[in-house]
């Protein structure tokens, strides 16, 4: 293993140096733990999501019906 180097005043190993040079900061596992901010929905987007809720309700009925009908 090559000698350690200095980054920002800290001693880093060759592996750490490799990670910092080869990956974007947002690719680091630790950075990915930070959540992305919630989206501010516009009117038509809220409408789409409410339509989706109705669709999901419809879908659940279809699946339950299918399961019960098939079980008979």
């Amino acid at each position, binding site marked *: 293993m090559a000698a350690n180097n200095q980054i920002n005043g800290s001693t880093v190993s060759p592996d*750490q140096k490799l990670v910092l040079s080869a990956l974007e900061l947002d*690719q680091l*596992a630790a950075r990915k733990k930070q959540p992305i901010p919630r989206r501010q929905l516009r009117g038509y987007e809220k409408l789409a999501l409410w339509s989706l809720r109705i669709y999901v309700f419809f879908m659940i009925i279809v*699946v339950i019906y299918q399961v019960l009908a098939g079980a008979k």
Partner: protein
Amino acid sequence: MSSVEAPKLAAGVVITHEDIDRAHDRERVVAARARGGIFSRLRLLWLLVGPGILVMLGENDGPSMLSYAATGSRFGIGFFIPFVVLTFFMALIVQEMTVRLGSATHRGHAELIFDRFGPFWGWFSMIDLGIGNFLTLITEFIAIRAGLGFFGVPPWAAVLSALVVLFLALVTHRYWTWERITLAAALFNLVFVPVALLAGPDWRSVSHAVTTWMPLPGGLTKDTLLILLADIGATVTPWMLFFQQSATVDKGLTKRDVRFGRIDTALGAALAATAAVATILATAPLFAHHMSADNFQAAEFAQALQPLIGRFGASLFALGIVEAGMVASITISTSSAYAFGEVAHRPHSLNLPLRQGKSFYLVLFLCAAAAAAIVLIPGLPLVYAVLVVNVIAVLAMPPALLFLFMLANDREIMGDLVTPPLVNVLATAVVIFLTLAGILFGISVIAPNVFAFIGGK
């Protein structure tokens, strides 16, 4: 490998084992890109392909291949040849969005839905995916059991050997190695090409079908329409979106790699379409011999084909079904594990050592093992399970497509990789088409006679 597990640097950046493995993969990409020249471009392609081919060949799973086989035996060479190619083109349009999303945000699909649209939709997507994936996994093990059954392998041995293969691919603890092993297995999907050649297709009929989309034996009846709706609705299934985006992130693709990600997806679509068309051609002789094969399982197809294409061809067909179930069981269980890790904020990468990724590997393996165990329960209504899977898969797509579309058009997270206007027109048309097909199929399940005016049984 560094002995330091997670050192904290002065900049506040924590480096993990997962990061180090990914950096090694990226270092090779950077080196290939820096060299230039045709061989370096080819090496770059070799390094960057993977998620797209895997997702498309993974979608050619056990039930799909049996469905193509049933189509060939029921309709012969005709309308369904170009139709199947069209469905893969639609899949390409949809899956390309996941490449851009993964490369731009470095986040998985489940994670993005959770963060951008809130916990309700995050957990909904997760539960939806989990149930759908689990039921689909059951059908994959049914295919593996049926395919190996052709060679006289007992069900328990068939299922156990599939689990061993899945486990062996995982113990590498390295995304790159896992991807290459799974890719090698996935390319075996093309075994249906020699089977089709052994069936001796009439190439003039194939050419006629491609250019005219005809014939469609029996015309457009209610039954044919339902097959079409189910096929269109099942062109893209939720696990495909979650898997390709998470795999793109795990592989470490960046904005600079999007072009190769697109080539990867297009290559996957072309290979998968080739295997699908080959399967239709392989079973078309059954149509010519008026053999009803609607409810055939893998072994029965192989047995029916044996007098026409010989024992070798029939064996290849059965092996192809086994491979289709095997690769799909690997990719589908991986997509469940990725999504669980993303939503539960647990480590989720195939680069994780077993000790650090306990929950990830546990979810992955337990999903597969539970599905495999269910297949071994005597007297289980397996055909019924397949039907429920199809209904859930088709009905679950509209929400998944809506979130995909909204995320790919979200400039805040996509930046300059937001869907371009022209592509958006195409994507909108495909999303609406797939959604309507799914809804119509759902209506037909509740009211089976709704399309009776078209004719048919």
